[in-house]
């Protein structure tokens, strides 16, 4: 089998059609397990009481918002250097889901900040850079659609995605580099400062979001392929 077998839109269309439902099923199972562990099994927090349970959405969504941007930028780089159609389409397919998770991270953060910090929103480095990420996603989506020729839109958007990558380390390390109201990371490469069942719930939710993101990206790329290749013979034959 050719290495680039799945890099052709028509074969990838079929592969994505098989994989996407499985991703959604896995996401639903992991999500249900994560919600059970997070909302039923995990104990009340010593400092914050019940409201800390927002963490089970907030942190996984924030992780996904950054990770999806990174993957999107990688696909963008791939489409710019190798001029591959499918990579550009994958980058486009990831953007709305990334924007959605960024919004969720900001929204849940606001409704977590009000009862704990005493404010829905503050302009500290962590919150501001995450808001910048949301506007980078919006800019990517808008720029991609601003050209008559979708391939030109691909290139412009990919360039923006690559420039925006500098924002990712700023978001992640903002709580270390500057004085912020936002607390530091509970989970890092060095270890964790969370009780084990709380951590389990959060990781289950993170994997659920992960699987959901792959599912939506595959489902969306199928639609993009249909739109762009609608004049080809294989689409006509569907």
């Amino acid at each position, binding site marked *: 089998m050719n290495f680039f077998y799945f890099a052709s839109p028509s074969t990838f269309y079929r592969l994505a059609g098989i994989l996407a439902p499985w991703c959604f099923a896995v996401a639903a199972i992991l999500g249900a397990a994560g919600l059970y562990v997070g909302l039923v099994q995990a104990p009340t927090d010593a400092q914050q009481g019940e*409201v800390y349970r*927002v963490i089970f959405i907030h942190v996984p969504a924030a992780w996904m918002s950054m990770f999806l941007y990174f993957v999107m930028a990688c696909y963008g780089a791939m489409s710019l250097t190798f001029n591959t159609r499918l990579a550009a389409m994958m980058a486009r397919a990831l953007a709305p889901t990334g924007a*959605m998770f960024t919004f969720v991270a900001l*929204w849940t953060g606001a*409704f977590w900040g009000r*009862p704990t910090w005493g404010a829905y929103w503050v302009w500290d480095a962590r919150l501001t850079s995450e808001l910048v990420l949301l506007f980078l996603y919006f800019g990517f989506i808008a720029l991609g659609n601003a050209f008559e020729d979708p391939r030109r839109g691909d290139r412009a958007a990919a360039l923006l995605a690559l420039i925006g990558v500098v924002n990712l380390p700023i978001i992640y390390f903002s709580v270390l580099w500057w004085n912020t109201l936002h607390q530091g990371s509970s989970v890092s490469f060095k270890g964790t400062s969370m009780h084990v069942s709380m951590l389990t719930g959060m990781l289950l939710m993170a994997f659920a979001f992960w699987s959901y993101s792959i599912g*939506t990206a595959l*489902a969306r790329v199928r*639609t993009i392929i249909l739109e762009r290749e609608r004049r080809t013979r294989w689409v*006509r034959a569907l």
Partner: protein
Amino acid sequence: MNHDFYIWMSYGMTALVIAAEIAWLRLHRAQALRRIEEERDLEAQD
């Protein structure tokens, strides 16, 4: 301290946007398929 409101607002909005995204995905796909169908019909008439 009762924080039910904040928890519900967080989980509720998350459920809402996920539902909205899935609905939007289905709508988008239906539109693309309809367009292919229309073009195929037009060609059949020629």
